[in-house]
Structure formats: structure tokens, C-alpha cells
């Protein structure tokens, strides 16, 4: 596999490394919502790669190498020697249709030699948990699925996904990688710790928590954030994700962060369903523990990647917007931690998301995460 890295800014337009010797099958790109809207970046890429699948999404910040950029658009073009790539996409009609949408996507990519699936989804109008449930329902537990939900900084207004076309809201794209040579490794970790008493989800409706211990959940967050920071909900709420413990599935490690607030009702909407009756506990983290968590994700991915790789290795880092918000200028620390684990020979690209997709080390079952760093490694084995 050969990788060409390139990036765009307003001052210089697209610039990048040397062109590939062969045409790329796939181009991945990530940028701010405003940078991608309108489709200019897509069309410029299309001019550069007329025969490639071009897939991208809006973010809460782009990762390239050791840096984080908000104003630039980052991209990689991938040229596989023995791997086939298929790109499919779907429009999602409503949150409730998430599972059906996932199943439709999966049916389009499923094949004997499907070796991995990378998913980019709208980050606001999709129930991520249900989307993944629909996908794994069709593909079964053995096909690794990773990816992320598109972001919109800390604005939570609109997210865009583009698959061989202008990036638009309400889109889900999936890239299927086929063939025996394809190598797909992943890692996923958070670095958060629970604190305070366990609380009971006394009333919930899907992803909307109506009552925690009989009290509107917004009251709890307001107490913990202070009035000033609470005014910045849902963004400020990312500092306190919820650890969910479901009696029905005691081994699942579920972390959920706030996505939307209804200030009148005092309710909070989370990235996926939170069952009524389960236990919730607040989580918090410090800079060092978050960085250590990211390093752990890098270590998992790197150690999962077998030897005998031929050509370049790509790591796609999908980290949570919440982490970036908490870490501020220290966000760099988590990228450094991943880099230290992956080593110098891996090209790193990625974005800050509204939800991360990867099988956690504990269960191996593909899940939607919040507040984690996920690392997906793509490579090809020697013939």
C-alpha cells in the first residue's frame, strides 16, 4: 500500500507529498464544517483523483501527524496493491430509522472476503448505537467495523458526510475493504474514571434521560458544572460523561456523553439509548489520564497489527470532541501518546468526532463509544 498525504488551507490551497505512482483507489478527507460545506474541497479532490472513491466528513478538529488543525482540511490517498475497495452510502431519514439504515449499508458491502468496514456517519441525526446494531446484525460479529460520527466543533448544529459527492447532512458512508492481504487493526480506550455515587436512571425515552434518581438530569449537570459553565451545555457537559451499567449486560463498558439539552424539560439527550432502570455514574478525567488512555488505544492497535506488512501503514485516529474540550492546549499530549506507541513508520490522520466506532478490547463486539480515542490501522501484507 502506498499513501499520499496532503492538506489544504485558505492561503495555499492543496499541498502534499509526492504524487503516487499508481492511481489511488481511496481518498479520505476531514475538515471543519464550514470548510467542507458547499463541496469545493470535494470537487478539487475529484479533479486531483478522478478515478478514486473520495470519502470525508466534518469534524471537531483534524488530526494530521502530531498536530491538530481547525482551519485546514487534511486528506490521504491510498493505493492498494491487492485490496479491493467498495464505497456505499445511504441517506438516513430519521433517528428511528438508524438500525434499518445500518442494515441496508451492510447488505451492500457484505461478501465472503470482506476484511473490514470503515464507517463515517452523520453525527447528530443518527442513533449511533442502533446504526451499528443494524450493521453487525447483517455482518455478524467477525467482521471488524470501525469509524466515527462526524462532528461540528462544539456547536452541535450540523454534521456533513460526503461519499463520492458533496458532503451533506443525514448521510452515512461505509468503505468495505476486501481481500486476504488487507490488514485491519484497532484499539480503543478512554482514560476516564467514575466518581461520586451511583445514580439510577429512573426515567428515560430512548437516548433521552428524563430523570436521574427522580431528578431532571440537567439539574445534576448544572450543580457539577456551575451556572457559568452550565450555560455552555451541551458542549461543557462533555467534561462529565456518564458511565452506564446495565444489569442485563453487566460486562459492557458503556460511556455516554451529552449531545443535546432541553432546558425547559431539564432532560439530556445522549449519543445512544440509555435503558430505564440502569445505573449511571459520573466520570471525569485529568490531562494525564486522558493522554494515557489514548496511548493505550495506540498500543492495542499496534500490537494487533501482524508482522509482514509491505508498504505504508496508515493510522486513522478518531477521538472524542469531549476529550479535546477537556484537554484544551493539552490535547496535543494525547496525540503524542498515540504517536509514541505507534512508532515513526505510521502515517497518522484523523479527527475529533461525536462518537467513535470500534470493538472494545474487552468484548470485541463493535460498539459506539463516547469520550474515547480509537485507532484504526490499515495496511497490506506482503504477497
Amino acid at each position, binding site marked *: 500500500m502506498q499513501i499520499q498525504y496532503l492538506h489544504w488551507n485558505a492561503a495555499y490551497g492543496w499541498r502534499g507529498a509526492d504524487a503516487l505512482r499508481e492511481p489511488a483507489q481511496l481518498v479520505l478527507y476531514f475538515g471543519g464544517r464550514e470548510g467542507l460545506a458547499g463541496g469545493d474541497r470535494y470537487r478539487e479532490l475529484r479533479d486531483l483523483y478522478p478515478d478514486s472513491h473520495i470519502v470525508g466528513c466534518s469534524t471537531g478538529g483534524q488530526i494530521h501527524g502530531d498536530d491538530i488543525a481547525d482551519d485546514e482540511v487534511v486528506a490521504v490517498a491510498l493505493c492498494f496493491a491487492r485490496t479491493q475497495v467498495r464505497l456505499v452510502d445511504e441517506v438516513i431519514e430519521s433517528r428511528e430509522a438508524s438500525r434499518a439504515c445500518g442494515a441496508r449499508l451492510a447488505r451492500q458491502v457484505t461478501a465472503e472476503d470482506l476484511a473490514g468496514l470503515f464507517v463515517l456517519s452523520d453525527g447528530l441525526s443518527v442513533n449511533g448505537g442502533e446504526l451499528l446494531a443494524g450493521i453487525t446484525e447483517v455482518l455478524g460479529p467477525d467482521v471488524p467495523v470501525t469509524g466515527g460520527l462526524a462532528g461540528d466543533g462544539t456547536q452541535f448544529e450540523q454534521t456533513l458526510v460526503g461519499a463520492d459527492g458533496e458532503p451533506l447532512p443525514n448521510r452515512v458512508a461505509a468503505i468495505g475493504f476486501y481481500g486476504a492481504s488487507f490488514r485491519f487493526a484497532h484499539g480503543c480506550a478512554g482514560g476516564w474514571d467514575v466518581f*461520586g455515587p451511583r445514580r439510577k436512571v429512573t426515567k428515560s425515552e430512548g437516548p433521552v434521560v428524563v430523570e436521574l434518581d427522580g431528578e431532571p438530569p440537567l439539574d445534576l449537570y448544572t450543580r457539577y458544572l456551575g451556572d457559568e459553565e452550565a450555560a455552555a451545555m451541551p458542549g461543557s457537559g462533555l467534561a462529565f460523561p456518564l458511565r452506564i451499567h446495565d444489569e442485563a449486560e453487566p460486562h459492557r463498558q458503556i460511556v455516554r456523553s451529552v449531545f443535546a439539552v432541553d432546558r425547559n424539560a431539564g432532560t439530556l439527550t445522549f449519543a445512544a439509548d440509555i435503558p430505564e432502570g440502569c445505573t449511571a455514574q459520573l466520570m471525569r478525567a485529568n490531562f494525564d489520564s486522558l493522554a494515557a488512555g489514548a496511548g493505550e488505544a495506540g498500543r492495542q492497535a499496534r500490537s494487533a497489527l501482524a508482522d509482514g506488512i509491505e508498504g505504508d501503514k496508515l493510522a486513522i485516529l478518531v477521538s472524542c470532541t469531549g476529550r479535546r474540550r477537556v484537554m484544551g492546549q493539552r490535547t496535543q499530549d494525547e496525540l503524542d501518546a498515540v504517536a509514541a506507541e505507534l512508532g515513526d513508520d505510521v502515517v497518522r490522520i484523523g479527527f475529533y468526532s461525536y462518537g467513535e466506532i470500534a470493538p472494545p478490547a474487552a468484548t470485541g463486539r463493535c460498539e459506539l463509544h463516547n469520550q474515547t480515542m480509537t485507532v484504526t490501522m490499515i495496511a497490506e501484507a506482503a504477497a
Partner: protein
Amino acid sequence: MHRLLARQIRQATDETGQVDVTRLGELVSAAYEESDGDRRRTDRAIKLMIEELEQTHKRAEQDLLRAREFLDSIIENIPIAVFAKDARDSRYVLLNRAGEEYYGMPREEMLGKTPEQIFPREIARAVSEQDRRVVDSGTPMFLEGHLLEVGVNGHDRLVNSRKLLVRDSNGAPQYLVGVIEDVTERITNEARISHLAHHDALTDLPNRSAFNAALEERLEQAQEGSTSFAVLSLDLDRFKEVNDVFGHPVGDMLMRAAADRLAAEADGAFVARIGGDEFMILMPDDIRREDVLTLAERLVEVIGKELEVDDYLSQVGVSVGIAVYPDDGVDAATLLANADSALYRAKREGRGRVCFFESEMDQELRDRRLLQHDLRQALEQNQFLVYFQPQARMDGEVIGFEALLRWNHPTRGFVPPDQFIPLAEENGLIIQIGEWVLREACREAASWPRPLQVAVNLSPVQFQAGDLERAIHQILLETGLSPTRLEVEITEGVLIGDFTRALNLLRRLKALGIRIAMDDFGTGYSSLSYLQSFPFDKIKIDRSFISNLETTPQSAEIVRAVLSLAHALNMPVVAEGVETEAQRAFLEREACEEMQGYLVGRPDLIERYLDLIGVAVERRLYG
């Protein structure tokens, strides 16, 4: 240099290597603010978390307290003594209210103390030994129904107790928990219920089922050992009258007294009350018939003695029937039936008798039952007749008739009154039959042209049961007979028993204008006190004295004495059974007022005496 500062300097340095100090200042300042914000958030979270955890803790403590209070109130109020002790030194740490009652001391005197400080030395040692055993072995102790070893109620309580060891979180013995349940009442109740199942509640003698079991057991033994034994069936005579007349409380006392006498006298035999006034006695093995008879006669004698019950002097008798294994039966049913047959015979031969079973008794018993059956139909099928026997002054002038009941059975012919009247008295039919006779007699007398008197016999049973006064009144109204023409004849039996009641009834009848005659005088007890207590209108001397007038001088003396006594009391006398002119002459000489007997006329249908009642034969026949 801090990693972040290095990064910030790098970010503030342009391509020429120039550091933009303003930019660097902004970055550093922002980092400080981020740090401050994070610290504030952390501080706040820690503070809130502590508050929340404190609240949670407090809530949990309150829940725990409530749960403890709940359990405490249960332990405090259960009616079983509960205690807990320190497992190391047996000091009491808990005692509930029932425990205080059990030990007979307030818990303040026990809590914090060892058994040695509380109980006498012997008890304390036993308690401590038990405690050590439970602690050392770790196995609970259960004791059921053992006698109380401590407690002020003395040693007369039975308790179930258990002690068990409670360990602390490290597994070391911590507490000994004990419960003590007073089961005295339960155990006594169980024993009482068992006793009641086999004993008669009134007399505490074994009951019918106990007797049956004993009889079966005895039969088995006798079959194996080829021994013999006797079964006695006993029936109290006149007990029913006592019950009816004096009421059940007195009857019960009399029954108890009679039972006590039986049990005392038949010492060594199995005495059971099998119902009502019936008893059974199972005699010891291989007792000779003579000895059985001796005992039975002694029972008759003892029971027949007057009993003073609740200020009443009462007298009952007992009749005894005896059947002997194996002669009179080899199974329980036969033995019992034959003992009963013997008893019936004894009763029929006059109460207060003892009879051994004889084979012909079977037939007699069957006859008797058949007769009783026929008796029930006799009234419906008009088999009864009223005969009239004239009564006259000594000069021969007929002044009235005695109405006499006769039963003309369709196949047996005329059944003697002394056979069927006792039967009718036994089964209560005498009430209806008596009323029928009274009605017939009154109706007949009311139709006579001459206003002659009519005498009707009343049974003691009629006095004891039913409303005799109302019945007589009703019949007089129905028939239109003047009460002054009616005379009722009663025997002493009427006055035995509830004397006061009988006397009141006689007074009310007399007040209606009815005359009262004392019948069969001279037989039975002939207690003179009866004559004193009621102004009888007549005394009838029993026929047995009259028929013996000429043969036994004593009879004449008795007749003379009765006559003088009656005259002294101003009571006219009727002599019954006058058959000869000599008898009439004797009686006239002795100033007897009236007579009745074959000399005057036999009992017969009234048609035979039409002339006496003033009906011309022609008119009667053809009118």
C-alpha cells in the same frame, strides 16, 4: 522546559525563527485559564461528590436505623423469649420483653452480666456449659419440651429452646443468640385433647371408643390365653326423670356422683360411660360367675342409695345385664348385644335388678322391639279402646266410672296394659295416648244423661313432659264436661322427682274443680309425707290388700290403718278389687267410702253399662 511551554514557543515562532511574544503570552495565558478551569471543575466536583456521598451515607444510615427499629420492635414483641450474649464471656447483650417475663427480672438486671452474676451457682454452671458447647462446636443446640432450668415460674414449665452461634465478619464467634418458647400450654393441651378423645367429658370415665378398644384388646388376649371374662351393661334407672325434672345441671351432678360410685366399687375393672345413662364394665379375667354377680349386686345396692345433689335428695337405681366370654359370644358385637339383652330383661323384671344373659332373651328382645313398633301404629289405626269400670258407694249405688285403656291388637288380640304401658312411657308415646284416653273418657262422660264422675289415670311421664294442664283444659272445653265430674288418678311416681313442680300442677288442676285421687296406695314407698303435702280428694287402696283380706290378717290391719289414717286426714277411700260380699261387708264395717271391683262390675265397653249411665236401652239402640 514543560512540554506545553515548548509547544507554545514553537507555535509562536515564525518561519524566520522570530518568537511572537504577544502570541506566546496569549497561549500561556489560555493554558493557565484552562488549568484554572479544570481545577475549579475538579474542586467543585470533589466538594459536590463529598456532599452527595455524605447524603447517601446518611440515607443509608437512616434506612439501616429504620430497618433496625423494625426488627427491634418485632423481637421486642414476639411472645418468645429472645436473648443474645457475647460469645466470649456469655454476658447478656440483648433481652426482649418475653425474655424478661421468662427470667422474671427486668433486662437492666441482666444486660452486661454473666450467668454467674445472675443465676444461682448450679444453674449458672449449666448455662455456661451449654454456651461453651455451642461456641466451641459451632453447631446450634436444640432442646424440645425440656423442663425449665431457670426462671421464676419455678420448674413446672416446659420449654423448647435453641441456641446458635453468630460469627463476625472474620469468622470469629461473636454472639450467642437464643430463643426460648414456653410450650407448657401446648403440651398440656395436646395431652388433654388426647385424654378427651378417649374419655367422657362429664364423668372422666373412658368413653365408648376407649371401651371398644379395650374390649377388642381383651378379646385378643382371651383368645390367646383361653381365659374368660364378663361384660356388664348398666343403665341408670329413672335418670331421665331426674334430668327432665331437675334440669341438666342437677342431672350432671347426679351422673358424676353415680359414675364415681361405680368406678370406686368396681375397682380393678374397666368402667366406661358409653352414652346417656349407659355404662359398660369389663371385668378382670377368669372371675367366677358368682363373683361377677356379687359385684353387680353390690353396684345396684350402692347406686340405689340416696344421693344428695345440690340440696335435692335424689335417688336413681341401676339395672345390670351380664354377658360372659366365651359362653355368650366370642366377638365384641355379640357380647355387647347379649349384655344389652340381659339388661332389658333386668329392667323389665323390675328395675334395680341383675340378669345374666340367657339364650331366650334374644327372642324376648325381638318381641319387645316388635311390640314397640306396633305400638306406634296403634293410635293411628284406632286399635285402642276405652273400657269403663263402675265405682260405687258401699251400698251399691254407682257414682262413676274409671276409664281404662285397652289395646286390641289385630293379631295379638288384647295386649295386657302392664306390657305396653311401660313401653309407651319409655318412648314417650304415653303423652299422646294419655291425651287420647282423657279425651275419649270426657267425651263419653259428657254424653251421659246422669252426671256421673269419670276417673282417668295419668302417667308420671305426662306430668314431666308436655303441657298437661293446657291439654286437660282444652279437652274439657272441647267435650263440655264439667271439671267437677273429672277425677284424675295419680301414683306416687308423679311426686317422685320434681316434687314442687308436680305439686303446683296438682294444685292448679284442683283449682279448676278437678278431683285428684292417689292411686295404688299401700304399694311402693307410700310416703306419708305425700298425703300431708297435698289434700287428695281420694285415696285408692291397692287391690292386693283387698284380695288378701280373708287370707292374711296383716292385710286387714293395713286396710284398717289406711282407712283410719285417711279419715284422720279427712280423705275418702276407694277400695279396689272388691270381688266378694265378705270383702264389701268388711270394708263397710270399717267405714270405707267407696269400692270398685267385679262385685260392682268388670271393666267393659260403656255399652254394657247403658242402664247405669241413664240411657234407656231402647233409646240407645234405636234412638
